[in-house]
């Protein structure tokens, strides 16, 4: 393919077949070629950084050549990887949304990484020891390692310091509870400026509703079993009512669905004083926010708790032994403390390895950017990201209902009931194969 690139795209079509044949005929000493799919979770800039990393890896050794393929959003990446695998062209390594592991394992698309650990003469416990404890649950499925955390995030409350001063609030004391949040938001709302805003597009909304229901004492899903979600429960109902109240009762939040891009734009423009966004947006906000801002924990109603977000590296089923070995080698290189730390500083995600934070560059970075420290301090309260059978569809079942509520078409009580019904239907096939399958 490299030769084809040099010749220009024009020749690609006609020469692709010949090249494939030529590649197949190459002697055995040729390097193992593997494919690596990655989504662009933040900006185009990250795609370039990822491409640079892969190039660095390819130049650093001779055994493996990685082709990095940019594959759209997290959901598109899953679709493409699964379609490619079904068509007999599984990618070797994929950077996959960390909560897709259960679903992908149940469908048999990804492979257990235990044999690789065994070949390296290490155990799962030893391997995971250096990763933050909150990340383990999403990396392990049914007691076996399936994903290696690559970049992770939690939701974070970003607030405009100048608006706080203007409204007579102390910027050193951001709201810590839902009551304080609603109270501050009321004081901050003025004219066309909203006191509070949160993204409500697909994926983001489900994650933030998980954060709110967890802060309300809930769990969102059964971490041990992929066939249960807790939508029609007090913890989620309270979270849904809270959002509904912020919009319709307190009138501090814009009615309707705002996408993440719109939320950060509103925050930059001073049209929203407090926003819930991912820690993954930290670098972007640091670079673009002109007024002074600060960050705080997600406010709680019952307890402090946030879900993990981000992505893990997984390996697909159906690849050759050589390809597996090469893929595992690449994963290990991508997840060294140095690489993870560098990626973390570049993106704003936190590095999944604790030892990344012992490096001098990282200590210097945190000293310079105290907001990155808040994200880190919130980690002890982090819990696993929801992962069930048919994760995406089950998540959308809730998101569709909450969006209807945010548009004023449904009441919170009805929304969580309908979401539960839809989710139960979606998980029924799995439930009937497992917990309802009786002797």
């Amino acid at each position, binding site marked *: 393919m490299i030769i084809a690139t040099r010749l220009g795209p024009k020749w690609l079509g006609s020469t692709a077949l010949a090249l494939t044949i030529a590649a197949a005929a190459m002697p055995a000493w040729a390097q193992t070629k593997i494919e690596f799919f990655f989504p662009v*979770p933040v900006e185009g800039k990250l795609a370039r950084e990822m491409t640079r990393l892969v190039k660095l890896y390819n130049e650093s050794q001779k055994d493996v050549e990685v082709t990095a393929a940019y594959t759209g959003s997290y959901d*598109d990446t899953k679709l493409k990887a699964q379609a490619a695998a079904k068509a007999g062209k599984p990618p070797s390594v994929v950077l996959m949304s960390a909560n897709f592991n259960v679903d992908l394992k149940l469908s048999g698309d990804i492979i257990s990484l235990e044999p690789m650990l065994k070949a390296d003469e290490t155990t799962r416990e030893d391997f995971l020891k250096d990763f933050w404890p909150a990340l383990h649950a999403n990396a392990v499925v049914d007691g076996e390692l399936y994903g290696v955390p690559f970049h992770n995030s939690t939701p974070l409350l970003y607030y405009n310091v100048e608006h706080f001063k203007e409204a007579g609030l102390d910027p050193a004391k951001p709201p810590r509870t839902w009551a304080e949040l609603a109270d501050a938001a009321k004081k901050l709302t003025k004219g066309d400026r909203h006191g509070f805003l949160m993204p409500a597009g697909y994926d983001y909304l489900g994650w933030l509703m998980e954060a709110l229901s967890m802060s309300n004492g809930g769990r969102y899903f059964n971490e041990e079993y992929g066939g249960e979600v807790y939508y029609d429960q007090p913890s989620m109902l309270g979270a849904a009512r809270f959002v509904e109240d912020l919009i319709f009762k307190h009138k501090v939040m814009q009615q309707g669905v705002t996408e*993440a891009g719109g939320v950060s734009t509103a925050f930059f423009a001073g049209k929203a004083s407090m926003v819930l966004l991912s820690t993954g947006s930290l670098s972007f906000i640091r670079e673009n926010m002109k007024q002074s801002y600060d960050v705080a924990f997600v406010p709680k109603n019952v307890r402090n708790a946030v879900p993990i977000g981000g992505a893990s590296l997984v390996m697909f089923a159906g690849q050759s032994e050589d390809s597996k070995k090469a893929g595992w080698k690449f994963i290990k290189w991508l997840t060294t403390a140095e690489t993870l730390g560098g990626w973390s500083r570049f993106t704003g995600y936190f590095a999944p390895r604790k030892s990344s934070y012992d490096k001098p560059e990282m200590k210097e970075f945190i000293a310079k950017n105290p907001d990155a420290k808040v994200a880190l301090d919130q980690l002890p309260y982090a819990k696993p990201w929801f992962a069930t059978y048919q994760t995406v569809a089950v998540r959308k079942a809730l998101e569709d209902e909450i969006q209807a509520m945010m548009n004023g078409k449904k009441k919170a009580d009805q929304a969580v009931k309908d979401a539960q019904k839809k989710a139960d239907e979606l998980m029924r096939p799995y439930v009937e194969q497992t917990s309802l399958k009786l002797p």
Partner: protein
Amino acid sequence: MARLDRHLWPALTVALLSAVAFLWASPFLWTLVASFRPEGAGSADMASLLPDLHPTLENFRNALESGSFGLYYMNTLIVVVGVLAVQCVTVSLAGYAFARLRFPGRDLLFYAFLLQLMLVPPALIVPNLATVVDLGLYDTLPGVMAPYFASAFGTFLMRQTFLALPRDFEEAAAIDGAPWWAIIWYVLLPMAKPGLVAFAIVSITAHWNEFLWPLMVISSPANHTLTIGLAAFTLGAESGKEWGVLAAGTLLVMAPLAVAFIAFQRRFVDSFVFSGVKG
């Protein structure tokens, strides 16, 4: 009163139409304005339709630097032109067969063919991808094109076009001893031009804008098409949008199509109005 009416109504109509046209055009206007506005992310007047006093090309520079647009244009062009070229042959021949040839089960076959229109393309992703892999076309541009070589819509359109043509011309040619291919090439196709042009417009826009299928087939950056290249800007899951760069990138992607359609608009319309077919 009557004179007032004569002036009032056209004026009202024009005003109403302008209002609707403005509503319809405002996204394009905004894209145009935003792409030249300095300071991409989050300037307060980002949503404004008023052009900035100090227009800048910075956004275009950033967009162009974010991807190899030359390569993307080339790849998209290869796909669009390649698909259309093959389609022109297949749909005219199939349309001719369904319109003129007599064979048992013709209508049934035609309706079966039309059923394709009912299928949602995403449902076919996996089977199509398997075929593309079997053909050795995975991660190649011909792999992107292959599923579109035959088109149910095109076949339908050409069949209807041929049916509307009087048989006299063909019969005259046949009497002069023209074989079937000469009849199609010299007699029918020139008269069916409006149908072909209409189909070409649909085909070009569809494949220029297509995202999901190319994303499924293509992995190597060298084979990326424009839409995949553009997605790098638009699919930010966890961050804000750099609206200016986004607008500039969008303009870069749609510009060639927009320019072509504005330039040839007259011609497209003419080809429908003044075609040689007058019964």
